[in-house]
């Protein structure tokens, strides 16, 4: 059932992890961490909220927004009951999450590890949906959607994505809408699991007090079979233009929230990881704690310490976001654009580049001490065709010229969109 185990060791951080691809196509990743009591396991599929159409066996299937997240909820249930009740007998703490490009099922446990692995693998590998259980979940997820509707940060992120993308499904809320999830049926859910919840599209990753042999044994107990036919994801072409350069709306918040997003051209899979690291560094170089822009806006009372930039990237999208609360969104926007223009013109200071590199390297090293981070990052990297240590090595080899060159091609005002959330006027009682 098994092929040769790969052992990956990084001298720089004295860390080892192992990789094994089974004959059924499932990839196993294991990081035994001496001295740790617990195990964190992640069973992930390369199927997330942006996957909205696919072909399998010659048939094209279109999916409503939110179906990956809906599946995440439903995979905790089978004919025998719910997974939480079974996990309770092991003491494990279980959860799951759905992102744009993946869905992961996780547990943390300090005992009964084989039993917890059996529950994880069996529930996620053997879906069970009925009309009644789907209908009940539509109500629960409807409430989850409403909870996020009250979050200014969440609404800002999707308002920005909707402002820069015409068609890319990354613009839709991960949980979908009350209307879109109403379209979900058991049959549609089975079509998704047949296509994407198959060993060749999945990763089992674990870190802590565990060995690869234990993972292999757990998979063997389940007898997982490869998919009968591979599924191919379908993407809609995305124009280069910006559909909505400016948008504002109101919410029950105390002061305005400002956001700006920049739409970039996605890079090839081979370049993606290096590009992500550089883009992350650019956000830090533009508005990180030690930048002149941050200091100026902070001292003028225009931003607080939550103002930050981040990067979103996937197979067919790449974008920057900068957002935070401010009393003067127009001024912050103008100052941010001026700073980007200044860095393009004058160049990034060598000292700032080295500081950023150190800062990001320190964070990457620190992430290797948490069983949750290690197992989750290993799974995420594998799904993107990378290894756990790639960020460290990219950082160690990165040059100022690499970063400057990327900056010159990106963060253009004409490819940006701005969103402002203004406080709603409270009605007079």
């Amino acid at each position, binding site marked *: 059932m098994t092929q040769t185990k790969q052992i990956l060791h990084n001298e720089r*951080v*004295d860390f080892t992890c192992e990789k094994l691809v089974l004959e059924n196509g499932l990839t196993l990743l294991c990081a035994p961490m001496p*001295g*740790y*009591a*617990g195990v964190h396991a992640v069973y992930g599929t390369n199927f997330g909220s942006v996957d909205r159409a696919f072909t399998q066996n010659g048939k094209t299937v279109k999916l409503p927004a939110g179906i990956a997240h809906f599946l995440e909820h439903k995979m905790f249930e089978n004919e025998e009951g*719910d997974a*939480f009740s079974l*996990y*309770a*007998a*092991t*003491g*494990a*703490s*279980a959860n799951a999450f759905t992102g744009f490009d993946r869905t992961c099922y996780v547990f*943390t446990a*300090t*005992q009964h590890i084989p039993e917890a692995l059996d529950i994880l693998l069996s529930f996620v590998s053997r879906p069970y949906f009925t009309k009644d259980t789907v209908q009940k979940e539509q*109500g*629960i997820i409807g*409430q*989850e959607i*409403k*909870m996020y*509707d*009250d*979050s*200014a940060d969440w609404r800002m992120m999707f308002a920005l994505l909707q402002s820069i993308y015409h068609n890319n499904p990354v613009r839709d809320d991960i949980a979908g809408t009350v209307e879109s999830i109403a379209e979900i049926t058991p049959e549609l859910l089975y079509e998704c699991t047949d296509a994407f919840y198959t060993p060749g599209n999945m990763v089992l990753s674990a870190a*802590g007090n565990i060995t690869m042999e234990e993972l292999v044994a757990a998979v063997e107990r389940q007898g997982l079979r490869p998919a009968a036919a591979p599924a191919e994801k379908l993407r809609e072409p995305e124009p280069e233009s910006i559909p909505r350069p400016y948008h504002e709306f109101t*919410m*029950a*918040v*105390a*002061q305005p929230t400002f956001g700006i997003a920049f739409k970039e051209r996605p890079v090839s899979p081979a370049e993606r990881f290096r590009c992500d690291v550089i883009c992350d560094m650019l956000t830090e170089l533009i508005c990180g*704690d*030690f930048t*002149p822009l*941050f*200091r100026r806006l*902070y*001292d003028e*009372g225009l931003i607080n310490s939550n103002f930050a930039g981040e990067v979103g990237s996937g197979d067919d999208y790449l974008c920057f976001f900068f957002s935070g*609360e401010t009393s003067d969104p127009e001024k912050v926007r103008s100052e941010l654009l001026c700073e980007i223009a200044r860095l393009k013109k004058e160049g990034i200071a060598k*000292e700032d580049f080295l*500081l*950023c590199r*150190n*800062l990001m*390297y*320190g964070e990457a*090293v*620190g992430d290797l*001490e*948490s*069983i949750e981070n290690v197992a989750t990052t290993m799974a995420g990297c594998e799904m993107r065709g990378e290894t756990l240590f790639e960020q460290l090595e990219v950082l*160690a080899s990165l040059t100022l010229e690499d970063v400057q060159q990327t900056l010159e091609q990106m963060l253009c005002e004409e490819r940006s969109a701005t969103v402002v959330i203004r406080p*709603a006027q409270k*009605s007079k*009682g």
Partner: protein
Amino acid sequence: MQRKQLADGVMLTDIPAERFKTGRITLNFILPSQRSTATAAALLPLVLERSCAAWPDMTEFSKVLAKLYGASLSAESAVYGNRRVISVSISGIKDCYALDGEALSQEYARVLFEVAFRPHFTDGVFDEEALEIEKQKLREALENEINEKRTYCIRQAKRRFFSDSPNGVEKNGYLDEVDGITAQQLTAFYHEMIRSAVIEIMVIGADAAQVGESIAVQLSQVERAPSLPEAPSAMPRTAPLVIKEPMDTVQGKLCLLFTTDAIFNEADEAKLRLATAIYGSLPTSRLFMNVREKQSLCYYCVAGYAPMSGMFMVDSGIEHQNAEKAKDAILAELETLCKVPVPETELEEAKLALCSAMTGVGDSLNGLENWYFGGILKGRIRTPEEAKARIQQISAADIQEMLSHLSLSVAYFLTKEEPTHDAN
């Protein structure tokens, strides 16, 4: 774990943590939580974290931390019952992982002590310009509390629950006092903290001997008179207060606050901890399985317990039209647990979940620090193993008994904002 008294009112807790890639040092200044100094206590960490005498410019100081591979320096103010804890902490990667062989640990300790003991003063008081900037940040943070509806609902409920009790002193201070705080007042508060606070130092995966020597040098220059705050107390039972606050929200919120009417001893606290898990903090709890899953009355519904103030809480995200039903269902689950003994399997599974989490305490710096500092605050330091042994002794009757102590004091609803009509 080793505890060592360095001086009167100064203790050092050394937790070796070889397995981690980072180390952490935290200085905790423990004071009585007073209404009169609450706003200064909330403001002080903002000013300390910004800069210090060695690096008075905020940007230059940020560069120092970035150079130390992004060492994380934080100053925070927290309230635990009637105690205020102002902490200054630094964590960063160990020396062996530095790209150029720098001696990082020594630098971490130096930065930490500079921040805590040599603030950026101008003419003997906190720098006016920096203070004014940080006052604005605090003001905005207080004004922005409505942005997070869940937290806002809990805070509003606590305000009614604690009223004027010392346990209810606001962690983030008071909006109407921010403008009036002067550099002199804040400096006086800082000096008083250094003089009178009980200092608890936590060293996790770092050189405790070096930290001990440094603190001895710092404190030798100060006349200290440390005193422990009074023992914590719980709120008395009262008739339940029901408050409905309208707000422009999509999802409603409900926070129920109960008093235990007493600060529990170690044995009773362990029992209530297990009872809380069964009632509402595990994914198999009664609130999750019955109120959310079976009755679909909420999206989240979670119970928690604050041992330093005897406050028990259930907070929930609800549909506006189901608000009353959700409240009734939450209370009905509590009543059932008080009347009907928990089945043996449910009891044992809850014990397993709690004990499993306790076994994992040592798997993170945060876990270790929170566990042992929590024990220090309560005056009873136990290992996870000792706590697990106590959990194992709890019976179904203990669960009934402990939950019967709970008395509902406040039900706070964030409701939908109804359209208003002019009455004229």
